[in-house]
């Protein structure tokens, strides 16, 4: 039976190194993918994700058990990524820019069951197109979209993570969805889902 998050936190606070490792194992994927899709740079994302976990661990005593550990970690990851974006002003990425990152991991997960190279290439094109479209959203839109649709957070959780009012979160998500759809249409991805 898996140990719940709050028990893990208590164990970590009592000096259990394995509890720290388990927290990382449990949340490294969503934290890393959120930050990667925010900053669009794999090595930078790795560094920032590490920073986020280390910050979380150094202030683990301040974690309020009445909240979800995942929301707390996302909040720290959000602050870490936003600080970096403010410093480097990596606010938008041109279409070509995504090629630096997307193909590496998209190619690694391409559907191997797809026998036709052309169809596999089309699948990767669509994935790449979606990644690029997400990357072209302004950072605050991009983040709420990722938190909502990639991580499955509720509106109030997104408000807690980002520090935005609930109404603003709803507005951002609505507008971001519209922008995303518009960008895909501009890129030639039609309702049939083909480039």
């Amino acid at each position, binding site marked *: 039976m898996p140990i719940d998050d709050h028990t893990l936190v208590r164990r970590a*606070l*009592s*000096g259990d*190194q394995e509890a*720290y*490792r388990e927290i*990382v*194992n449990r949340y*490294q*994927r*969503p934290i*890393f*993918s959120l930050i*990667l*899709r925010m900053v669009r740079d*794999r090595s930078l994302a*790795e560094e920032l*994700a*590490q920073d986020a*976990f*280390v910050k979380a*661990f*150094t202030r*683990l005593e301040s974690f309020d058990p009445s909240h979800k550990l995942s929301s707390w970690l996302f909040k720290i990851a959000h602050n870490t990524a936003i600080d970096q974006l403010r410093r480097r002003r990596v606010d938008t990425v041109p279409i070509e820019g995504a090629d630096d990152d997307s193909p590496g*991991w*998209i190619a*690694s*997960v391409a*559907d191997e*069951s*797809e026998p036709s190279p052309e*169809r*596999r290439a*089309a*699948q990767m094109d*669509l*994935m790449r197109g*979606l*990644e690029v479209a997400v990357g072209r959203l302004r950072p605050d839109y991009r983040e709420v979209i990722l938190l*909502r*649709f*990639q991580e*499955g957070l509720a509106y109030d959780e997104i408000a807690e993570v980002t520090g935005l009012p609930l109404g603003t979160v709803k507005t951002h*998500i*609505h507008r971001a*969805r*519209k922008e*995303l*759809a518009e960008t*895909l*249409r501009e890129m030639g*991805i*039609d*309702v*049939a*889902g*083909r480039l």
Partner: protein
Amino acid sequence: MTRNDLHDAVSRWLLEEGAGDDREAEAALVRVFSALPTPEPPVGFADAVVHRAGVLVPAPLPSWAPRLARGMAAAALVLVGLAAVFLPLVLYVLGSTLTLGQGVEWAAAGLLAVCRAVIEALSFWDGLAGALATLGSFALKSPVLVTLVFSLLTTAIVVGGLHRWLKADRS
């Protein structure tokens, strides 16, 4: 995930966005993202984080340590307080093998010797020598007062030290 899953999800989402149904459009976009691959952190990521955190996160104290520290501090404060109040009496009791007069005489003799040494060293400075002689003679007349002042000074120093230690421990 298959190619068709992603293509179908995108098609459905774009249709729903076009239809203007927010609830359906959101549900469709959830399916689009679930059909997208999630980037994996590099191998060894967890080890790297734990290694970095291990350097920065201080080893926690055992759970009983704060209680022990508070207990020791409280006991020390009580002892210091009792010592300050009862020091003259304790000294008297400890020195009960001697008479009070003998104890006072030894203390006075010690003080007198110190005063004399100082007076001799500073004999060229008559004014200071005179003041020290006055102080010395006052102390000799009231050894209990000297002991009490000494006790209070000791208490103040110890309590100040404990306060700083407890404050540092709390922070």
